[in-house]
């Protein structure tokens, strides 16, 4: 395999048969190139999908309170249920096994003003854990912390677009804004992958919100996260136990479908993952198809190349080439060409993917990429099949009697 003489012979052949070399090399390079581009686009589509649907943490359950629809324990039906701070503490205390974190959410719309700029925004009174539930990304400053909750500070964390609207180009951090009729200090600016709407929120400590509303302890929604290792089925158990616990505490009929509502993101997650799996399947299918087309292409070329060389191989055999040396020569040559051009196609493909990647975001393709393992695997598969495709006709050619090969003149 590594005899210098044989390589020299092969390089000679390659150098003197440029068209043939180019054709087979081009087929392989093109096959790999198209594979990488399509596979990369598929991955981009998947990325975009994930960004659309999988923005928030996926192990969260949101609890809403509503009206009951059954009388129970002396209470009439149609009673309004409300959460309060004690519910947070009780859940924390009773479900340590399931619970990862918990935070209330009190949503209020408010007019917000800074100097002459003002507009209406949604404010959310939350706890520190809310940052994880929404996957809020801090750009500047910090998020609300436990101390803020304790001290009921008038601190606000504002969305990127709020800062843009109110402060234009100026620095919002440390400035004071009016929310409703109270003055809040901006302690942080965030961004969120969930889109524009999510970046127009203002977060404040929920205790501060309660203080402003006559110092009550009411909470509209409770957002909690189960430990991810519980999985979807574990989350359903958690949900069932939590429902029983809260119904008992709030004196709601066990069979009442209303009163408390749950939104388990794990359900949505499951659906989305199924959809993502279908996308993955499509991507794999497209990749496989391209690869097969590439294999067929290289096989055709190899058959053609060997056919074209039949006479030459006959001459070589008459001069003393053994069948083994004929096969070896053809294989070594084809594997050499496919390897070189395979990697050329690989690098061009990756390069093109990288350079046009950004401009495709409008077409629902985000960050198209191909992982190195897949790309290398595909290249090696093509080289392998190039070899096999060369081997079969080479073997036949090596078996042809020289007299047959030399006859047609």
């Amino acid at each position, binding site marked *: 395999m590594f005899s210098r003489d044989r390589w020299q012979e092969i390089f000679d052949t390659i150098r003197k048969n440029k068209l043939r070399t180019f054709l087979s090399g081009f087929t392989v390079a093109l096959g790999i190139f198209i594979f990488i581009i399509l596979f990369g686009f598929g991955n981009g589509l998947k990325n975009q999908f994930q960004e659309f649907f999988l923005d928030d943490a996926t192990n969260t359950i949101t609890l809403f309170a509503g009206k009951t629809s059954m009388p129970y324990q002396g209470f009439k039906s149609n009673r309004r249920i409300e959460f309060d701070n004690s519910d947070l503490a009780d859940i924390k205390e009773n479900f340590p096994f399931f619970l990862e974190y918990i935070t209330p959410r009190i949503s209020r719309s408010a007019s917000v003003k800074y100097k002459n700029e003002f507009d209406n925004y949604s404010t959310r009174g939350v706890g520190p854990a809310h940052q994880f539930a929404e996957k809020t990304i801090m750009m500047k400053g910090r998020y609300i912390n436990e101390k803020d909750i304790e001290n009921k500070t008038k601190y606000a964390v504002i969305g990127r677009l709020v800062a843009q609207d109110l402060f234009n180009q100026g620095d919002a951090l440390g400035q004071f804004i009016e929310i409703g009729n109270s003055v809040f200090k901006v302690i942080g600016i965030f961004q969120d992958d969930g889109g524009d709407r999510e970046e127009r929120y203002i977060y404040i400590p929920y205790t501060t919100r309660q203080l402003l509303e006559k110092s009550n302890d009411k909470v509209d929604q409770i957002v909690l996260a189960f430990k991810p290792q519980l999985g979807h089925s574990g989350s359903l158990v958690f949900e069932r136990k939590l429902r029983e616990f809260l119904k008992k505490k709030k004196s709601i009929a066990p069979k009442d479908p209303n009163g408390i509502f749950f939104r388990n993101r794990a359900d949505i997650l499951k659906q989305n993952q199924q959809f993502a799996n279908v996308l993955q399947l499509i991507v794999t299918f497209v990749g496989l198809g391209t690869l097969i087309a590439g294999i067929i292409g290289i096989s055709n070329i190899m058959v053609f190349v060997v056919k074209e060389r039949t006479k030459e191989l006959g001459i070589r055999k*008459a001069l*003393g080439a053994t069948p083994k040396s004929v096969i070896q020569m053809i294989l070594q040559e084809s594997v050499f060409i496919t390897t070189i051009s395979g990697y050329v196609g690989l690098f061009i493909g990756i390069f093109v993917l990288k350079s046009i990647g950004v401009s495709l975001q409008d077409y629902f393709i985000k960050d198209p990429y191909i992982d190195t393992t897949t790309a290398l695997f595909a290249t090696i598969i093509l080289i392998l099949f190039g070899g096999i495709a060369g081997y079969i006709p080479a073997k036949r050619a*090596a078996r042809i009697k020289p007299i047959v090969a030399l006859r047609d003149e």
Partner: protein
Amino acid sequence: MIQIKNLHKSYKMGNSSLHVLKGIDFEVQQGELVAIMGSSGSGKSTLLNILGMLDVLDEGSYTLDDVLIKDLDETKAAKYRNKFLGFVFQSFNLINYKTAIENVSLPLYYQGIARKERQEEALKYLTMVGLAEWATHLPSELSGGQKQRVAIARAMASKPKVLLADEPTGALDTTTSYEVMDLIQKINEEGNTILVVTHEEDIAKMCKRIVKLKDGVIVEDKKVKQVIAANYV
């Protein structure tokens, strides 16, 4: 050098079989220059192919340089061909993308000789056929006679026991034919054994012995007074 006894060969053509060689007994000594003649279909090319191990015999025996040639698989045949035989074809059969010197050194490559030595050897044989200055030319840049001389140099480069020439002048005009025959005679004078298949009387007369084939049997085998080709060039 060559002993052939009771050689039979037939080809299957669908259901019927064509009996081409019907019992040939034939011997060639070291240093002979033999012309094998016959009209087309007489079996002369088949005989040459069997002698050249390009084809296998059905019946009889073939001994070359005291080696009984039988049960040849492709690998063995290739080795014997490389060691014992040099071929010259009517259509030259040079590899068209290799230069003259590369063509000549090809059998040496298959003998496993180092590149440098190969080059020197090949140049030596090109010089012998008078084409040293054409060494780096491609076959397409050579005339028919030159091509055949390159082919002869290639056949001789592996120092074969026997040189087999199948209609070596078939594709050449008369003058060039005589030039090629002159070369063959000179190689023969150095003690090489040569068999020439031809259907041309004048070419045959330039050999030392003429064997005539008809319908698969030898009908005539006689020594002749050799016509010296150099006189006609």
